[in-house]
C-alpha cells in the first residue's frame, strides 16, 4: 500500500537526482543562490515546526546551525580524507557527517529544550537568543575548531541533489507529522496548552520534540552550508542570522509550510536582486542608491509587511484545510 506523500517524496528525489546532472551547467553565481535557497528552506521549514505549528518562539536557530556546521566539518576533516582507499567513499562520509551534524544539533536542542521550554513567549525567545550567543562564545574559544580564526579546508561536497533532497525530506517530515493525529498534538499545544494537557497531550514532550526536530534540520543545513562555502566562522551564526530565519517563517505565514518555502526562496533572492538593480544604469540614481542600501530596504520591508500583512504573505494555517485524513 503506497501512501501519496511517500510516492511524491520518492518522485521528487528522483527528479532532483536527474536535475542534478544539469546543475553543473548553470553559472556558479546562480548555483550559489540556488544552494542558498535550499539551505534556507531547510532552516525555515524546520523552524516553522517550532514557531509556526507549535507556537513556541525560538530566536536562536542559527546556534543549532552552527553546531551542525562545526560538527560535520570536524567529521569530514578528520575522517573524510583518510577514507580514500577504505570501504567508504567520500560521498558516504559526507552524508554520514551531515547526519552526525544533525544529530549533534538535535542533542544540543534536547539539552537546551528540556529546561527552557517551560518558559513561554518572550522568555523563551530571550533564552534561545542567549543560547545562540553562548554557542558563539564557546566556538570563538574552541581551538580545535579554529576559534575566532574560523574553520576552513572542507571540500565542496554540497551539491544540488543533497541540498534539495534534504529540503524535500524536511518538508515531507514536517507536513506528514502535522497532518497525522499524532502531529495534531503540535497544533493543540500552540492553540491552548491547558486544554491540550486536559486532552491527555504531554505538552512538554511535544514542545521538546518540535525543538529537537527543528534543531536536527538546522544541523543538516549547517553541514550543507559548511561544505558549500568551505569556510565557517562563529560570527556567521549570529543573532542576525537567526532573525533572518524567523523572518522567513513569519513572512511565509506561521504554520504554512508552502508559504514558508516561497518566503525562504524570495528572501534569498532579494538581496541579489537588489544588487542587480543597483547596477542598472538606466534606473534613476536615487533608486539605485536605495537598492545599494539593502539592509535599510530590508528593514523597511519588514516593518511595512508587519503593518499591512501581519499574517505573512500567504496567510496563516487555518483549520479548514487538511482536516480530512489521507
Amino acid at each position: 500500500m503506497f501512501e501519496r506523500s511517500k510516492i511524491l517524496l520518492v518522485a521528487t528525489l528522483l527528479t532532483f537526482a536527474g536535475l542534478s546532472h544539469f546543475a553543473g551547467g548553470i553559472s556558479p553565481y546562480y548555483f550559489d543562490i540556488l544552494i542558498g535557497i535550499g539551505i534556507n528552506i531547510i532552516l525555515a521549514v524546520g523552524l516553522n515546526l517550532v514557531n509556526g505549528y507549535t507556537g513556541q518562539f525560538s530566536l536562536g536557530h542559527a546556534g543549532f546551525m552552527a553546531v551542525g556546521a562545526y560538527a560535520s566539518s570536524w567529521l569530514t576533516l578528520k575522517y573524510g580524507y583518510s577514507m580514500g582507499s577504505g570501504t567508504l567513499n567520500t560521498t558516504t562520509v559526507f552524508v554520514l557527517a551531515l547526519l552526525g551534524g544533525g544529530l549533534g544539533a538535535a542533542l544540543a536542542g534536547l539539552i537546551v529544550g528540556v529546561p527552557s521550554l517551560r518558559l513561554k513567549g518572550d522568555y523563551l525567545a530571550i533564552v534561545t537568543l542567549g543560547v545562540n550567543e553562548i554557542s558563539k562564545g564557546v566556538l570563538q574559544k574552541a581551538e580545535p575548531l579554529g576559534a575566532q580564526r574560523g574553520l576552513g579546508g572542507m571540500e565542496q561536497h554540497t551539491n544540488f541533489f543533497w541540498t534539495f533532497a534534504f529540503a524535500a525530506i524536511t518538508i515531507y517530515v514536517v507536513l506528514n507529522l502535522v497532518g497525522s493525529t499524532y502531529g495534531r498534538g503540535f497544533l493543540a499545544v500552540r492553540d491552548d496548552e491547558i486544554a491540550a494537557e486536559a486532552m491527555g497531550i504531554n505538552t512538554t514532550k511535544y514542545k521538546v520534540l518540535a525543538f529537537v526536530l527543528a534543531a536536527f534540520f538546522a544541523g543538516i543545513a549547517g553541514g550543507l552550508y559548511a561544505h558549500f562555502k568551505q569556510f565557517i566562522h562563529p560570527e556567521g551564526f549570529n543573532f542576525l542570522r537567526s532573525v533572518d530565519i524567523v523572518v522567513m517563517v513569519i513572512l511565509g505565514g506561521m504554520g504554512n509550510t508552502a508559504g514558508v518555502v516561497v518566503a525562504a526562496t524570495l528572501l534569498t533572492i532579494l538581496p541579489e536582486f537588489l544588487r542587480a538593480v543597483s547596477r542598472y544604469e538606466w534606473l534613476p540614481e536615487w533608486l539605485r542608491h536605495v537598492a545599494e542600501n539593502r539592509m535599510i530596504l530590508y528593514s523597511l520591508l519588514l516593518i511595512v509587511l508587519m503593518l499591512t500583512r501581519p499574517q505573512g504573505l500567504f496567510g496563516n494555517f487555518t483549520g479548514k484545510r487538511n482536516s480530512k485524513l489521507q
Partner: protein
Amino acid sequence: MNAPLLKLDNVTVQFGGLKAVGDLSFTIGEGELIGLIGPNGAGKTTVFNLITGVYEPTAGAITFANKSVVGHRPYKITARGIARTFQNIRLFPSLSVFDNVRTACNMHLRHGISHALARGPKFSAEEREIEATVMELLEIFSLTAERDAACKSLPYGDQRRLEIVRALATRPKLLLLDEPAAGMNPTEKAELMKLIRFTQEKFGCAVLLVEHDMKVVMGICQRINVLDYGRKIAEGTPTEIRNDPKVIAAYLGKEEE
C-alpha cells in the same frame, strides 16, 4: 458499595493568603451523576483544577480509582480516565471541529512518530479507526454536518457540546463538566440534560457537574454538593438541598454576620 471512583479527603488549597478551598471532602461512585454548586467565587472551578492536576492541593488527598492523583501532570491524570470541559470554552481555535475531537484521541494512539513519518499500512489503519470513532461521536451529538467547519464559527451551544465530545474522545471514567449550560436557551438546556444523562448511560462514565442553572442541576443530579467560600456547606439529594436553610442563606446572602 465498592470503593468510590473519586475521593477528595480534606483537600485544601491556598493561593498566597487566600484559602480558595478548605477541608473539602466528597466522593463520587462509578457511574454516578453528582452536582457541585455554590455562589460565584465559591471555588467550584478550583475543585476541577485540583482534580485535574492544574493546581496542586496544599493539603489533603485526592484519589481516583484507589490511586492518588496529587502531584501528577494534567495529561497523566487525563490518561487515568478523568476528562473535563472548561467554563470559558477552550477549544483549539485554529482546528476544525473534526480535528478538535481527533486531537483528543491522541493519547490512545498505539503508534508514534515513526509511523506518522513512515505512513505504512498500520498507520493508515489506525487513522481510519480514529476517523470512525470521531465520526461516531460527532454523530451522537449531531455535529456531523459541521465536521470541517472552523470550531470558532460554531454557535455557542454547539461549541459547548463540542467540548463535551472532545472530552469523551479521551474515553473517560469520570467526566467533569464546568457550566455546560451557560449561555444556552431553554430548549438547548433541555436537550443538554438529555445528552448528559445519555452520556452517563451510554459511556458508563461518572459525571461531576458544576452548573448555575438550578433546573439543570436539580433535574439530573443524583446527589449535590454545595460549596461556599471554598467550604462544603451541604450535601444531599436535590430535594434535601432545596430545603437546606444553609444553602438558601448562602445563595440569598446572610442577613447579618
